[in-house]
């Protein structure tokens, strides 16, 4: 296992943080409250502060009572068994759930202090700051160059487009492999290259946060390793939230880990435990976390 960088984030005491003013649209359901430790990060170091976040798909309660802070320029991993709502939670962070007609979000998702679900917030403004990389690489059926330039163009980013494209491809550690083929179709690349192209595409918009929804699940181990190295590199400039099914991956790349689990009596996912990755993996406080990471269920 690679050495994790020392976390420079101070963690406030949990007890006090749990008792705080509820969110505007507070809507507690009758599902059993899980044992939950809330980590509070000082405001200037938190990118997201989630307060009583819940999600519904029609009648299905997918997620409830999520309270957690996501630190700046760190990698935060969301882990848990299938159906625990971790992808839903990720999609709450840049309002991608808006695209699902039946989806409804409650609670507050504060991004640098502003609730992204407030009236008057434009989801396009949110998404150009908070980029996303999907589970299945989804390059556009355009040239490599146009794939990367697309985001910059639609956002009206000024400057030399060639430089913007080159910088993004460098940042995504794929420049050397494609520099002579920029006019080739993005679909002609291998799966791992396609995924790094998608990361480059997200970086070209100059976002603040990058959300990754199981970015390696469709890739082979070597391509996976490259993406993981890249994720570590990117923390110098970006905040990353990654959903993963792979526990070793969470341990390798993340600074913080949140473990989610669907409630026993319902279908809605809860946050079971959240903390520095080293603690979650070496000294989990909750029995269910321990069972999950040691492979006893899920």
């Amino acid at each position: 296992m690679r050495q994790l960088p020392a976390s420079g984030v101070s963690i406030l005491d949990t007890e006090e943080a749990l008792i705080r003013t509820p969110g505007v649209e507070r809507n507690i359901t009758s599902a059993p409250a899980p044992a939950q430790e809330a980590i509070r990060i000082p405001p200037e170091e938190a990118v997201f502060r989630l307060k009583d976040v819940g999600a519904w798909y029609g009648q299905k309660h997918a997620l409830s009572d999520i309270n957690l802070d996501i630190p700046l320029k760190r990698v935060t991993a969301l882990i848990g068994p299938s159906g625990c709502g971790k992808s839903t939670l990720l999609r709450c962070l840049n309002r991608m759930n808006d695209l699902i007609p039946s989806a409804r979000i409650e609670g507050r998702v504060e991004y640098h202090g502003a609730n992204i679900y407030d009236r008057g917030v434009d989801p396009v403004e949110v998404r150009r700051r908070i980029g996303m990389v999907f589970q299945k690489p989804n390059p556009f059926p355009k040239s490599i160059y146009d794939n990367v330039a697309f985001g910059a163009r639609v956002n009206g980013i000024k400057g030399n487009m060639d430089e913007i494209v080159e910088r993004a491809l460098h940042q995504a550690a794929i420049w050397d492999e494609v520099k002579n083929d920029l006019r080739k179709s993005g679909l002609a690349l291998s799966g791992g290259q396609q995924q790094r192209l998608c990361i480059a595409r997200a970086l070209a918009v100059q976002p603040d946060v990058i959300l990754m929804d199981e970015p390696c699940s469709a890739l082979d181990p070597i391509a996976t390793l490259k993406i993981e190295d890249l994720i570590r590199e990117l923390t110098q400039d970006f905040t990353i939230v990654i959903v993963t099914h792979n526990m070793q991956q969470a341990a390798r790349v993340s600074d913080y880990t949140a473990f989610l689990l669907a409630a026993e009596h319902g279908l809605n996912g809860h946050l079971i435990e959240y903390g520095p990755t080293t603690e979650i993996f070496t000294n989990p406080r909750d029995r269910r976390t321990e069972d999950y990471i040691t492979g006893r269920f899920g």
Partner: protein
Amino acid sequence: MASQPIILRASDAVARRQLVSRLSRYLFLGSTLIGVCVLVVLAYDTIATGASRFSFDFITNYPSRFSEKAGVRPGVLGTLWVLAVTVVASIPVAIGTAIWIEEFAPRNRFITIVKINLANLAGVPSIIYGILGLAIFVRFYDMKQSILAGGLTLALMIIPMTVIAAQEAIRQVPPSLRDGALALGATRWQSVRHNVLPNAIPGIMTGIILAVSRAAGETAALIMIGGFTFIRFDPGPPPVNFDALLDSFTVLPIQIYGYTIDSRREFQANASAGIIVLMIGVMTLNLIAAVIRERFRRY
């Protein structure tokens, strides 16, 4: 050691299933051949009857009471003019409707009703559109029995089927491309303009060409609004004059129909020759569509 070699010949159960499978293959081949054979026989019969009359003069001559001098010039020009009006009037409306329904419309009962009615409208007999065109364009808007009225009537007729084809093409664009664009901060329109439409264009083109081909062969609706069968002038002074839009007209299918019902035997060959002209026109349209489709399939 001498073990019994395993026998992999079809057992009774497998043999029975394979028999059904092989029979089904011939059954479906047969149904394909029915269509192909009918088409070949029809084409052969038409060409055999009409080839003697098919010539450049036949396309450029006006109708005449002498069968060997008669031509389909007004029909060809009328068809081109009417189709031009139809294309200009129907395509923007049809594509716009499809985009709205697939990309922008909320999911509610109103939209469901709209969708069902589009499917119903695509199945309405063309004569009904003719009556509608007669009432609205010819009478109410007083366009007389003009090219404009004819083109707009055909536009009404093909809009529903073009919308349905375009919707289908738009639905074929993978949702992951929309997600990808929107996650980069593109607006809905930017996602449609740069991702959805370029990928849907081949399918939309196919739908448009099929619809326009149907309009090119339409007779009933245009007879209803008064496309004449015997005309001896060109629409508007040449080469292109938009006054033509208000001229009276005929179209190829109506001329063909006119030749077919003519009691004089020698005019039957003219009807077949007219069909050859129409077929060449429609096949050219299909060729254009194929070229456009390939151009957009670069990646």
